[in-house]
């Protein structure tokens, strides 16, 4: 048995997949692990992340399985789940072995690994969907729009294409408070990610003059739009889980 030891990054995991094929391993007897947990009777291979190998793997996955399934694989790898690398690896093996075409990578849900990767990607996909809805920007006094999120998975990079398409002429940034990660979009330019380190504390925000007014207006609107006779807090909580609310204008206490 061979175990590829990776770090938790796209680069490292895709390099491991590349190596597994390059070194012609028996895929049923190969494991990609993100931890250092020892496995009995296994040969450890420490993977050195290699950008070129990653690009090759990504290009072929994109070409063979199409954009949607390729994105699902990337989403699965943005998860915090420890088994994600193995699930994605074996899904790719299954897909290549069965010769699946674009859009059909996750067809074989009866396969445990495919199902695992599918389920992980679905969880991450849902979180991305939720945050697309629930991100709230605040205008700072220099005109920059700032939003803080605290996602369970590393999804910031998946949010940026949506928002930069939507607000092309705005300077905005999204801060992942859990990971010390900033995604920055300068007006009219390409967005980029920026690691600020973990211990960065919440910067003191100076919001613009109008900001307070619009926050109040929106909060009032949310209050007024509800029909009292249909009150249903359970349904509200199903649709909008509590963990998102601390960063949302309409649920924050501004007193």
């Amino acid at each position, binding site marked *: 048995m061979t175990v590829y030891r990776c770090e938790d990054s796209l680069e490292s995991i895709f390099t491991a997949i590349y190596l597994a094929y390059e070194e012609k391993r028996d895929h049923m007897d190969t494991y990609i692990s993100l931890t250092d947990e020892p496995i009995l009777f296994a040969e450890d291979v420490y993977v050195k992340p290699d950008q070129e190998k990653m690009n090759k793997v990504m290009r072929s996955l994109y070409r063979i399985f199409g954009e949607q399934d390729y994105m699902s694989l990337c989403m699965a790898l943005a998860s915090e789940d420890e088994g994600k690398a193995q699930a994605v690896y074996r899904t790719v093996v299954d897909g290549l072995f069965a010769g699946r075409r674009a859009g059909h990578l996750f067809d074989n849900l009866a396969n445990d690994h495919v199902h695992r990767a599918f389920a992980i990607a679905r969880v991450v996909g849902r979180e991305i969907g939720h945050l697309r809805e629930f991100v709230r920007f605040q205008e700072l006094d220099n005109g920059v729009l700032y939003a803080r999120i605290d996602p369970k998975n590393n999804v910031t990079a998946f949010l940026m294409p949506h928002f930069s398409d939507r607000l092309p002429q705005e300077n905005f940034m999204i801060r992942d408070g859990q990971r010390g990660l900033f995604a920055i979009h300068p007006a009219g330019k390409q967005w980029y990610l920026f690691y600020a380190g973990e211990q960065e504390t919440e910067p003191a925000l100076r919001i613009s003059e109008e900001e307070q007014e619009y926050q109040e207006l929106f909060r009032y*609107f949310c209050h007024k*739009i509800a029909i009292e006779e249909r009150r249903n807090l359970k349904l509200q909580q199903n649709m909008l889980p509590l963990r998102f609310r601390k960063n949302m204008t309409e649920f924050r206490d501004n007193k």
Partner: protein
Amino acid sequence: MEFLTGRQEMPLMEKLGILANSAKYDVACTSSGVDRKGNGVDMGNCVAAGICHSFSSDGRCISLLKILLTNECIYDCKYCLNRCSNDVPRATFTPDEICRLTVEFYRRNYIEGLFLSSGILNNPTFTMELIFRTIWLLRNQYRFNGYVHVKAIPGADPEVIRRTGFLVDRMSVNLELPTAEGLRTLAPNKHRKSILTPMRQIQNGITENRNELVLYRNAPTFVGGGQATQMIIGATPENDYQILNVAESLYQKFDLKRVFYSAFVNVTGDKQLPALPGGPPLLREHRLYQADWLLRFYGFKAEELLDEKRPFFNVMLDPKEDWAVRHLEQFPVEINKAPMERLLRIPGVGVKSARRIVAARRSANLTFADLKKIGVVLKRALYFITCSGRMMYPVKLEEDYIVRNLTEEQERIRFGSDGMSYRQMSLFDVGSFEQPVTAADRIQAAVGQL
């Protein structure tokens, strides 16, 4: 002496409160149906699936800034909060205020776009023109590229409706009440014909525009997100069968994208309206939506679900379960062989899981464990399916038996959680058995006094 000038100086906050409050009984708050990428300069794009940005305390989504242009109205519809004989505070937005609110809310990711409806100010055409002017300003001066949904005002000049159609993503005309009769009694100023005319006009506009777009790729889009309507449920004595038939013919004859149902809330207290002491008919509304989905995505027809003899939906079973237990001759369905149309008719199998089943069974024979992974709700489906010729448990294909099992679970949740139950009371249910035995009881029992 004070004049009415105060109205112009009403603070924005107060106006927003009044006009959101008057708009809240409009159901449609969807932002779906249009996929439009940003153009790199203007603000805004649209996502086909729609995005809900928040949820209010009634659990309904807040996707669009849903407001009225004005809640002044010359009509006197008995069910409406804004009827002219109702004494409520009135307000009117200026087009600039609406645009500013929309754009500033949109920037902060509060909303997906604007939903603009209006009371009738002066006359329908005048009102429609105001709406047109507002949207024109929003699109051309504020360069807003997000989602816009407006109401077409029945009775307005067709030309204004047409011009508005080229600026918006979705248009809707409210049917208000399911039958012409109901409309006559509760909305004396509205007529069935004047409602259906703009609906037909928009439908024709969309078809024409589709042909145009095939020829000229850059032709402007007319109501790209399609047309919707809504009707009030429970204000008039129609039955579910009538309502569902109306919805079906709207989908077929008017090519609507959505029909919304709105459980009636008595806000005016008019004596011609039902009192509804148990609150709005929410379960009925829910069943209608379920049936609506069956019509649009599952290939059902209205007369399959209900008929003259059974004009109301079952309270305990959802419409699909209800249909299935009445058509047991078509079950069980073999998961590994049945065509898509038959899979879709199994309770507990939705469109997504049916698609996944069809894809997954190409590679392997599916078992019940696999169905669980795929997302089939086995709790409901197990009575109606076989995998490779076997049922999950030995169950009887018998109407009473299945109904009992399907509803038992729900009963237990609904009635069991607060200690109430429909089960027959047994001797041991009497509370006195649960009281702890005290020392005094013991002594009494020992000496034979109990």
